[in-house]
């Protein structure tokens, strides 16, 4: 299952500070959307509002609408837990649970919610998720070993396996490759291409080649200056953004003439 996200007039605040201003964007189902832009322009902040992770930070709040196939995430009475079980997230730094084995890490979404699952189903889910994250062959002989013993790239793929094990509709990735070497990055980019068949993928990246390689559409965010809110400058097909952008600042940024 895969769902589309429509964002309208979204403002994000940290206390009184407006971090992101008036975003209107539509993220298509079964596609990869990349967010690019300079540091501090609000792309990660905006990404976190898409599964209500933003409000975990004290003082943070959101105004506006985020529709997941027409359902507003920020409507009254919406439980953020329900939202997050449908919109998974992979973080910048790999963060497997240190107290759990590789197997338990994959099953974390199920086990932590204490849903009962027969052993054989659990085994199938572990294999399916790890295969989905291109990690199965590397770890199938040591599923009971701690997840923190894996390399950084493997840990990140373990986190992706963990995210897809709860079968979300959307997967958000916040600079998933920024702590990884080129080979692990390639593995994860291949994986993103495969995930596209089943999930809506949104990825924040600082690496413009990566955005060009993996995404169908690209959104460029920018800020006018320190202390000003971040804005969505341009959103279009990735090829358009990189070859023929409408905005001058987008062209400056993607061609490296920024600032």
């Amino acid at each position, binding site marked *: 299952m895969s769902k589309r996200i429509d964002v309208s007039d979204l403002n994000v605040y940290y206390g009184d500070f407006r971090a992101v201003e008036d975003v209107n964007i539509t993220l298509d189902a079964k596609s990869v959307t990349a967010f690019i832009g300079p540091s501090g322009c609000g792309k990660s902040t905006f990404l976190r509002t898409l599964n209500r992770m933003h409000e*975990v930070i004290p003082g943070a709040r959101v105004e506006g609408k985020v529709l997941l196939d027409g359902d507003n995430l920020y409507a009254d009475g919406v439980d953020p837990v329900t939202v997050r079980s449908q919109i998974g997230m992979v973080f910048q730094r790999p963060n497997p649970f240190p107290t759990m084995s590789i197997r338990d890490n994959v099953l974390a979404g199920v086990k932590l919610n204490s849903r009962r699952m027969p052993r054989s189903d659990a085994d199938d889910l572990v294999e399916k998720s790890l295969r989905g994250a291109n990690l199965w062959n590397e770890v199938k002989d040591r599923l009971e070993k701690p997840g923190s013993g*894996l390399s950084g790239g493997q840990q990140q793929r373990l986190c992706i396996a*963990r995210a897809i094990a709860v079968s979300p509709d959307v997967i958000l990735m916040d600079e998933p490759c920024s702590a990884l070497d080129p080979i692990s990055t390639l593995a994860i980019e291949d994986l993103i291409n495969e995930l596209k068949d089943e999930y809506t993928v949104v990825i924040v990246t600082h690496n413009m080649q990566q955005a060009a390689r993996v995404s169908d559409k690209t959104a460029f965010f920018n800020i006018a200056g320190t202390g000003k809110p971040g804005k969505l400058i341009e959103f279009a097909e990735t090829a358009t953004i990189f070859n023929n952008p409408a905005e001058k600042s987008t062209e400056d940024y993607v061609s490296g003439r920024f600032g």
Partner: protein
Amino acid sequence: MATLITERKRSALTRGRLPRYTPWVIAASAVVVSAALLSLIGFNVFGWAVLSAVLFAAANVTAAAIVEGRRKATDKLASSLIYGAFLVALLPLVSVIWTVLLNGVPGLLTPGFLSTSMNGVTGAVDNAAVADGTPVLGGVYHALVGSVLITLWATIISVPVGLLTAIYLVEYSAGNKFSKVITFLVDVMTGIPSIVAGLFAAAFFALILGPGTKTGFVAAVALSVLMIPVVVRSSEEMLKIVPNELREAAYALGVRKWRTIVKVVIPTAISGIASGVTLAIARVIGETAPLLVTAGFATSINMNVFAGWMSSLPTFIYTQIMTPTSPSNSDPSTQRAWAAALLLILLVMLLNLGARLVARLFAPKTGR
């Protein structure tokens, strides 16, 4: 053609350095010189050790200042001060352990010391033991049981209260006013004199159960007053160092907050929490004053913390020393007191070892 370069005998890189054996030579000379100096005014071992150390430090620093320069001399001076401070700090510890071992071992090894109580042991019994030269009768079993039970109940009360408080402070309060008040009060509680905690418990139970209520449970309440702030503080620190990323990882999987705390945060911090709790137990197990006013003394075994007076190791030591069983022959009582003191130290030591074991057992596993 590349020429082979052999290693030079006297390296240019070690110029202006004292040879490695210098400290040993200085130490040996300091020992000899201080022995000679002291023999002029009267020799004693303690003065010899102190004078040797001072001479050694002074000569070492001076030599470094002359040959190696100011930076090395400062380094040597600081090192001497730190090692000196370490030795001074160690002195009382070693002295206490040595004295207690020396005086406590005979009593501890007396048959029946660990398995009998003081029930029926009167002054006449002690007098007879001294007169006949037979082993001292009577033991510490009732006090050991009392100590263990009272501390156990104190732990049962303090750990949930303390841990839940820490969880509230770290996970739920988000630094609001209420949490600041709690933190302040916990800090105040840390500084409460133990006798005040004892009087609080005594007064509290006198109010609800009538005056003169002295049971093991009252003592446990008094001890938990002392224990709770320690548990709160240590658990709070441990919960704080759990990386936020783990909480966010769990939230992003659609896990509820309390399940995240129970299944992710606490397991990650459990080794630190467990050792903090054990150290808190070690701190209160040696308390005397609050037990004197809350549990009273007993000479017989009482397994029920909710009724009757109870003895404990610290109060046992206190009563044996202050009011010997036989006023004319206090030696048996003194021997029992030292043995009980040794037992208490061993108990605390075991608890500390246990804390380390627990910490290792629960620590997040690594390895490939």
